């Protein structure tokens, strides 16, 4: 195998509450891709069957009225949520829920209990196949967008869904950041931008500064349970009240009324009144009309709810509305004229709607995917994102001690020291929470970390340093070390609303039963892609730095491991390839550390900095 820079296949996926899209960069131009019928949007709806594979997209959406219990829409609202969390949402969603061990709600269907993660995975799989068919090859990586305001559990659930779908995630990217990339690279405008993202199920606002190729998220705020669905719901409740219908009604009728509300909302973006009609299974018939003015009165409280986070984001960024250069509108709900008006008034300028608000996120994700997968070496664009919600731990008295305040740039590492309170204590539990409130009871529980293997000592003598790390995807990991002995504690993570690694493995194994060949092939492909990536990285490193940084012996060891992996790549044995892969990783570990240190030090000494400034 000869080293050559090939074009890698990468896409950006906007996994939306109501619609999902996939986009890619072709000939330097980012565009959304169409399915066989020529549609850019894939409705985020999955219909499950007792003895057939699920159906995803428009066909599933069309069946929602006739088969409401087995047709799952808006699963994104349930991702990373506990059953108690979704109860308010669930009352409005026409599904049957069951509680699971993981604390996550499952939806009872004819195909069994389906988790929201599995629903999302089915949507991702459909988009992946569509993209692979069009690009003519398997994908090397994807960037998936999430609402900026998603907490750790929701992000983790999204990543789990991608893993289940067999996708290599290059990065989880915040939706508003993606939109800013799409606009920023288009206009190349330096300055401070606001992205107002009012989608199907979530709202968030981000303030970004774009300067010399660097997007810096200054603040983000939002409401992860507020979206166009709520507009539909408010309208549906109005229709039900007008038609004299009570809350007790069949799922299919509720679905139909929500559908009617949705149609009315869309009509009112261009019409000034809309005719409505209801015809239920119990024979209730009603007809009426709604004016745009009355519609606007109905949804005013929802719009007001979006302006509060705008105010907070401005304050967190230390800015006023006057500092804002422009406001970018994202998400289907920004098509509502009153929303545009209110946002325009709030920021004192006409919002930008040049790029289709439904496509802009996917387009931005595709641009970032293209860069991350390595198709644009030398590209200077960089995104610096933040953690949307404060991270803390439980302390005495049910209080939360904040470790990482919201809007801290990621990645971030924070260490905290703990001690034992009993003689001979060898384990302790750390409860990690997310949110802005001071009481544990008001915060969102992320996980409980059980530290084990603390050397037995007198109470208060052990010093356990616990390190919390949030990576560039906004995902938390925790490690711990006892400082006086240097012993690493083992950590068992119990996510409060997510899947454990074991559960994801099991779901993967279960899906093996479905299509054993398909999954096995995909896993082999994943391993091959991973290893090819490693080979490319090591060869590049050797070419650049072998002279001077490596002894002869080290060089020989690495080259031997490199040849061994290339050799195993030809086999179709995942385990063999993985073993050779790990061996190469290990043999280059010191070399990697040395290179990083030397290169960064060179940069810091001003050598590279000056080159960049010139």
């Amino acid at each position, binding site marked *: 195998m000869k080293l050559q820079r090939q074009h890698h296949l990468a896409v950006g996926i906007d996994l939306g509450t109501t619609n999902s899209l996939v986009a890619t960069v072709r000939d330097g131009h980012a565009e959304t891709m169409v399915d066989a019928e020529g549609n850019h949007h894939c409705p985020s709806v999955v219909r499950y069957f007792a003895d057939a594979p699920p159906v995803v997209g428009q066909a599933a959406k069309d069946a929602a009225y006739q088969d409401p219990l087995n047709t799952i829409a808006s699963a994104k609202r349930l991702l990373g949520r506990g059953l108690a969390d979704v109860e308010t949402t669930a009352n409005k969603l026409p599904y049957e829920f069951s509680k699971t061990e993981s604390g996550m709600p499952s939806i009872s269907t004819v195909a069994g209990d389906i988790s929201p993660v599995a629903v999302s995975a089915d949507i991702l799989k459909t988009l992946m196949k569509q993209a692979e068919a069009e690009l003519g090859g398997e994908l090397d*990586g994807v960037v998936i967008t999430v609402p900026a305001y998603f907490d750790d559990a929701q992000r983790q659930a999204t990543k789990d869904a991608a893993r289940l779908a067999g996708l290599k995630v*290059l*990065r989880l990217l915040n939706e508003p950041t993606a939109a800013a990339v799409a606009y920023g690279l288009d206009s190349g405008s330096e300055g401070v931008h606001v992205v107002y993202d009012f989608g199907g199920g979530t709202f968030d606002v981000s303030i970004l500064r774009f*300067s*010399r*190729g*660097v997007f*810096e998220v200054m603040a983000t705020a939002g409401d992860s349970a507020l979206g166009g669905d709520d507009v539909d719901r408010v309208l549906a409740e109005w229709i039900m009240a007008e038609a004299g219908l009570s809350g007790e009604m069949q799922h299919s009728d509720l679905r139909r009324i929500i559908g009617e509300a949705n149609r009315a909302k869309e009509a009112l973006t261009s019409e000034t009144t809309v005719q409505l009609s209801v015809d239920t299974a119990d024979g209730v018939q009603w007809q009426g009309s709604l004016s745009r003015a009355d519609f606007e009165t109905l949804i005013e409280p929802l719009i007001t709810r979006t302006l*509060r986070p705008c*105010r*907070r984001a401005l*304050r967190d960024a230390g800015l006023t509305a006057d500092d804002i250069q422009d406001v970018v509108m994202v998400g289907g709900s920004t098509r509502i004229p009153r929303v545009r008006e209110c946002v325009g008034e709030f920021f004192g300028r006409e919002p930008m709607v040049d790029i289709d608000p439904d496509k802009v996120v996917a387009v931005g994700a595709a641009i970032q995917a293209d*860069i*991350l*997968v*390595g198709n644009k070496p030398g590209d*200077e664009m*960089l*995104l*610096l994102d933040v953690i949307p919600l404060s991270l803390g731990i439980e302390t005495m008295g049910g209080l939360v001690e904040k470790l990482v305040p919201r809007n*801290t*740039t*990621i*990645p*971030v*590492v924070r260490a905290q020291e703990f001690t034992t309170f009993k003689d001979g204590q060898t384990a302790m539990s750390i409860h990690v929470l997310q949110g802005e409130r001071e009481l544990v009871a008001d915060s969102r529980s992320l996980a409980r970390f059980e530290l084990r293997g603390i050397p037995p000592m007198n109470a208060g003598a052990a010093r356990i340093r616990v390190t919390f*790390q949030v*990576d*560039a995807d906004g995902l938390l990991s925790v490690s711990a070390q006892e400082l006086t002995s240097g012993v690493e504690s083992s950590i068992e993570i119990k996510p409060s609303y997510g899947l454990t690694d074991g559960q994801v493995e099991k779901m993967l194994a279960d899906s093996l039963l479905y299509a054993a060949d398909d999954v096995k092939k995909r896993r082999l492909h994943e391993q091959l892609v991973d290893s090819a*990536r*490693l080979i*490319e*990285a*090591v060869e590049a*490193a050797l070419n650049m730095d072998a002279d001077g940084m490596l002894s002869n012996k080290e060089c020989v060891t690495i080259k031997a491991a490199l040849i061994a992996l290339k050799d195993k790549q030809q086999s179709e044995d995942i385990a063999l390839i993985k073993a050779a892969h790990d061996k190469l*990783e290990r043999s*280059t*570990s010191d070399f*990697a*550390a040395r*290179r*990083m*240190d*030397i*290169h*960064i*030090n060179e*940069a*810091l*000494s*001003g050598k*590279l*900095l000056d080159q*960049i*400034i010139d």
Partner: protein
Amino acid sequence: MESLFSKDYFQLFNFPAVYDIDRDVLTQRYRDMQGLIHPDRFVNATEKERRISVQLTALINEAYNVLKSPLARARYLLQLRGVDIDDSVTSKDIAFLTEQIELRERLEDAQHSDNAERALMQLANELQKRLMGLQLAIEEAFEDDASESLVKAHRLYDEMQFISRLNDELDEIEDAFN
């Protein structure tokens, strides 16, 4: 070679360890360094490099946050110069204590006055001016290493911290009004 992880924040950004640093240069160096070490630059690198990149970026982020904040920078510089800062010890400076009480009372009054929003804004402006003054004073105090200068810097830091906290509280109260 000295490991990056053992450098202090000023060294990381190639600044002398003084209070007065150029914000624009700081931001520029921060961005240039991010361009080199951010995990997005190492998506295709080995696992080890990816891990170092995350840790190093986190370190640079932390250092940048400390250096760009007038309050955190003062605290960090005091610590670098060997001053032990214990937040649980309250000041013994009677004049400062009296002023703290006065300012707290003024915040209370502003909150409950007829035109609370305006009163809060006035107080906020005043606190801002006060902070600017303190920054200039502490910059001067940090100019030499004499022990009385450090004692002075420490006292100014305590004042800065109090005013900043009061300012944060005020922000929250203003928020509740909106």
